[in-house]
């Protein structure tokens, strides 16, 4: 029957897609032996690079949270001319080729441009430093945070804010007491997505800072110098550590989540 063949076709191609995504990852996770995993994590280069990845990625996500939240709120709440343009700008970092991101940021803070020279004279080092890595990561992570936070704010009814204000709360008190707690789940998802995207970045970071090495750069170097087998264990560790981080973030967010769940029963 035609109906069935259509369904079978849909199921078959869905299966192909899922296999295509999962099998390489599973193969990679299972390739290194436990011994080589243990050996790898004991190398100072490896655990330092993973720590650097985590620390810069989290910093980038927090910067996005601090500076991006007001913009996300404005985009969710207000209508203004040029809003479409602002939204397009905010999405740009997703579509810009990664080395181009690095090249663009280096063009600004490198020594070929006055800003870079001014910073150099002030003793602020961006190129080849954790702050440079954080800057790049913030750039590529921003759209993911903004998108999630915007959706979170949009899902809070403006009437709740209106009522809060009519009860005597200022705009700021309303944001802190009503809007933010209700959007918190989406904001936390946004922080996690942003952090994940930041830690996954390679092409842009490698331009601004080959050293100190974040984990993806270390993997790349090991792959170039020693081959596939030596890069796989690092990849496994990075993925495991990221998973632990994201799960614990979700659990921390759970205490505040409970209230929301209660409210939606």
């Amino acid at each position, binding site marked *: 029957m035609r109906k069935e063949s259509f369904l079978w076709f849909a199921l078959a191609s869905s299966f192909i897609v899922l296999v295509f995504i999962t099998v390489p990852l599973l193969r990679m996770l299972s390739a290194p032996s436990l011994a080589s995993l243990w050996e790898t994590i004991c190398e100072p280069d490896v655990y330092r690079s993973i720590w650097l990845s985590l620390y810069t990625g989290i910093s980038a996500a927090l910067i996005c949270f601090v500076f991006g939240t007001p913009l996300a709120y404005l985009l969710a709440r207000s209508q203004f001319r040029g809003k479409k343009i602002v939204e397009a700008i905010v999405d740009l970092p997703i579509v810009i080729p990664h080395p181009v991101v690095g090249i663009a940021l280096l063009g600004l803070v490198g020594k070929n441009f006055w800003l870079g020279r001014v910073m150099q004279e002030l003793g602020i080092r961006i190129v080849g430093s954790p702050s440079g890595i954080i800057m790049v990561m913030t750039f590529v992570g921003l759209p993911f945070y903004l998108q999630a936070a915007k959706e979170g704010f949009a899902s809070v009814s403006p*009437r709740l804010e*209106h*009522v809060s*204000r*009519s009860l005597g*709360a200022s705009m700021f008190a309303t944001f802190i007491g009503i809007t933010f707690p*209700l959007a918190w789940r989406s904001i936390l998802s946004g922080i996690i997505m942003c952090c994940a995207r930041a830690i996954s970045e390679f092409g842009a970071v490698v331009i601004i800072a080959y050293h100190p090495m974040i984990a993806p750069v270390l993997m790349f170097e090991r792959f170039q110098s020693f081959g596939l087998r030596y890069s796989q264990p690092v990849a496994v560790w990075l993925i495991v550590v990221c998973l632990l981080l994201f799960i614990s973030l979700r659990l921390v967010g759970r205490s505040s989540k409970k*209230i*929301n769940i209660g409210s939606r*029963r």
Partner: protein
Amino acid sequence: MTIRIENLVVDLGSFHLRDINLTLEPGDFFALMGPTGAGKSVLLEALVGLVPITGGDIFIDDRKITNLPPEKRGISIVYQDYALFPHLTVLDNIRYGLRFHLHEKGAAPIDDLVGRLNLNPLLQRYPATLSGGEQQRVALARALAVSPDILLLDEPLSALDPNFRQDLRAHLKSLHQASGATFLMVTHDFSEALSLAQRAAVMNQGELEQVGGIEEIFCRPTSTMVADFVGMKNLFKVEFSGSMARVAGLEIKVGREAEGLQGYVAIRPEDLILSKEPLVSSVQNSFAGSVAAIRSHGFFYEIDFAVNSLIFTAVITNHAFFDLELAVDDGFFISFKATAVHLL
């Protein structure tokens, strides 16, 4: 508190409020009525301070609040969808406004409100676990906890199950008496206003059509729009001569001299009687005609009845409908008393 709205003008793209003038006396229970889209909610939001005002002023007693932010106005609002804070318990919802009012008036009478609205068993629950009627009561308590000068109610009964309506009406009346605040209720349903408010205004296309006592508006509408709104469906342009009104070849007894009026008569559909024989008397009009259309409305039928070129709309019970064995194009008589004819 007296609220004075003077020449208020609001421009919202294609929608305008024009020259709204309205004074609410202290302790009024005032109904703002009108069809959907008349601008009632816009006026409410302008009072709260959520809509930019183009011209005119709003005063509470002699305090000008036109340019104050919403949190400084002393006006509470209860929305149709309750708008309870979902992440706070009922108690925290009710208490929410208090911390912003600590410097005023001392402790607000929360316990009294909670008791009066039977909210004690609900205090630790979250809004999503409450029924519509319970949510509405919490929203009322929250709005009144800050002792507002004015309480705005946005269609307070329309979203409620009919079973809860009577309950909430009683609560509204008792709260109004106890709080001493001025209540301003918006509704598109005339019967809702009739059961709660003393004074009312009818709004249409951004303007106030009539302001006055609720029974005055019901019994003596001053414009055809208001007459239609309060259910006087049979509205005809006539020529008065003595105590008669002439239209489409009919002579309608109206029982008194008509002077200085716009030249309309209006008759409520429930004042029309359909019968197989004419009911003739000196104070009664009776015309022969035929049924043009039949519409069923729950307990009642609405009948369009053609007399010459006029269409009368009558309302009869299902019972009478089956008794008369009405069918479209059947000939009947339609009768109504001279005193049932309203002159405009």
